[in-house]
């Protein structure tokens, strides 16, 4: 016990509490307050989603019918019963997302392969990675402005101005960074041993990539592609002055060179109409768009989770 005596002097300089919990001490109260704040944050954070989803489900879902899904929208007016439908917009969204995917998947996957297989940490690769991050941060409206300037106003594509092609190109600019990044990261996860093994048995680099690394990274690349398409399908800003809007179905390939409607632009246009009938169409289009996007999100989650099951 002798040493205890000299120690007590030192201990005097500390707050010497008993081991018994004191729920009213300043420290314990502060702990509780911060915990409460954090719980409040979490609750507040999910309220918007709950509200948006429920309003879209209720206001949009209640009018969903076969007619609504396939009819063409009528000119704006206050006639609730014959406002028409959103058929052309659904088709337009799918077509322009497809055009965007066709443009950006080869470029994006190719760029990703370059980054992780050919120039892992070279200066040029660093520069491209940086560029990809910057491109991902470019506001989506800028993509629209850019395509407007080089495609629409110059009428460079067979003299057409506003067109589905231009819209798809604007969307592809937004998809590109997502696809490059996921390809790059997916390929990075492929163990180097496999590459060395393939090259060791005399496979060419091309064979190695197409037969070994790409198949292994396939799932994470597809996740990226799905997420990229989902992002593009929900975008409006790049389309409002590239693809513009149309009330009619496309009837043939040549229609790709004319204005085309999309769900998102339809929502934008009709939300601002003073007529209830058009507002209602906007809600219904939101319902359909959200179902499509949530579906894609769940699809990408499912792809990711089945990957992890396989690997571990």
């Amino acid at each position, binding site marked *: 016990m002798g040493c205890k005596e000299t120690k007590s002097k030192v201990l005097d300089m*500390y*707050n010497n*509490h008993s081991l018994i919990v004191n729920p009213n001490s300043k420290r314990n109260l502060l702990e509780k307050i911060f915990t409460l704040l954090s719980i409040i944050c979490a609750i507040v954070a999910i309220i918007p989603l709950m509200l948006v989803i429920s309003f879209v489900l209720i206001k949009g879902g209640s009018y969903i019918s076969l007619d609504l899904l396939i009819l063409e929208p009528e000119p704006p007016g206050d006639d609730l019963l014959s406002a028409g439908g959103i058929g052309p917009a659904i088709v337009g969204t799918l077509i322009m997302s497809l055009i965007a995917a066709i443009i950006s998947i080869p470029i994006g996957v190719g760029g990703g392969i370059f980054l992780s297989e050919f120039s892992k940490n070279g200066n040029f690769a660093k520069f491209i990675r940086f560029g990809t991050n910057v491109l991902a941060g470019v506001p989506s409206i800028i993509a629209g402005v850019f395509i407007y300037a080089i495609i629409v106003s110059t009428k460079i594509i067979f003299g057409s101005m506003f067109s589905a092609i231009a819209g798809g190109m604007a969307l592809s600019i937004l998809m590109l960074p997502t696809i490059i990044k996921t390809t790059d990261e997916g390929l990075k996860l492929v163990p180097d041993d496999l590459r060395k093994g393939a090259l060791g048995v005399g496979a060419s680099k091309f064979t190695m990539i197409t037969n070994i690394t790409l198949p292994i990274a396939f799932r994470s690349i597809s996740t990226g592609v799905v997420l990229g398409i989902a992002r593009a399908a929900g975008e409006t800003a790049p389309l409002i002055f590239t693809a513009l809007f149309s009330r009619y179905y496309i009837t043939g390939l040549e229609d790709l060179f004319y204005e085309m409607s999309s769900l998102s632009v339809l929502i934008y246009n009709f939300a601002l109409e003073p007529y209830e009938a058009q507002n209602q169409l906007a809600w219904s289009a939101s319902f359909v768009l959200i179902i499509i996007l949530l579906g894609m999100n769940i699809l990408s989650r499912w792809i990711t989770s089945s990957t992890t099951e396989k690997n571990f």
Partner: protein
Amino acid sequence: MLHNKDKIKNNQSTNNCISFENVSIKYGNSVAIRNVFCDIPRSNVTSFIGPSGCGKSTALRAINRMNDLIDGCQLLGRVFFEGIDLYSVDIDPVEVRRKIGMVFQQPNPFPKSIYENIAFGARINGYKGNMDDLVESSLRKAAVWEECKDKLNESGYSLSGGQQQRLCIARTIAIQPEVILMDEPCSALDPISTLKIEETIHELKKNFTIIIVTHNMQQALRVSDYTAFYNAESTQESNSGKVGYLVEFDKTNKIFNSPKQQATQDYISGKFG
């Protein structure tokens, strides 16, 4: 009988600092250690030895309630510290950890300056004295002052592994606990750093009760006054692998020279583990 024991526990004249009373610890459904009884004396060094996975760390973490941080970890029985049941509902685990400090297997300085690594703990414990003095004296006691004195403002991670571990010891000393728990503090270190830390432990023994987990039998022999030997065995009731238990607890020289149990004899002579 429990009654009787309680009386002894509450009697301050006993020399026991920490007492395990029928302690069993479960992770989820799998039992890690069961039915440990053990009285650890004050102002001594006690070492926990035993084969890997027998629950030494688990038992050690039970003493300052670090197991609380692990999801699904559950303790049955009682752990006493100076006669107080650490697991009774009105105990504040934060205060427990202020009185029973811990040094971990991997050196884990904070990503702060060397000075702050020590000052942080003292400050949150309400230290009111001169901080510079405290930093210096703690680093000196942990035998790392010479290496640190010129770079107090550099990151704790600018030190070598052994120095980092001694910084962590200094950090623990600075909060003036009554007990210091060390979980294999030398396992990541070279022999010279190990020796330095052992010297540090010898110094600290004067002021603190120390409990150290080690895989190195020579180290247990060198630094500890008492030794607890844990082992693990497969039991019928637990299908989830082995369950740890305390085989023998005694003065270190008894454990190493004349153990009562055959298992202890086998382990220290290197037959298994």
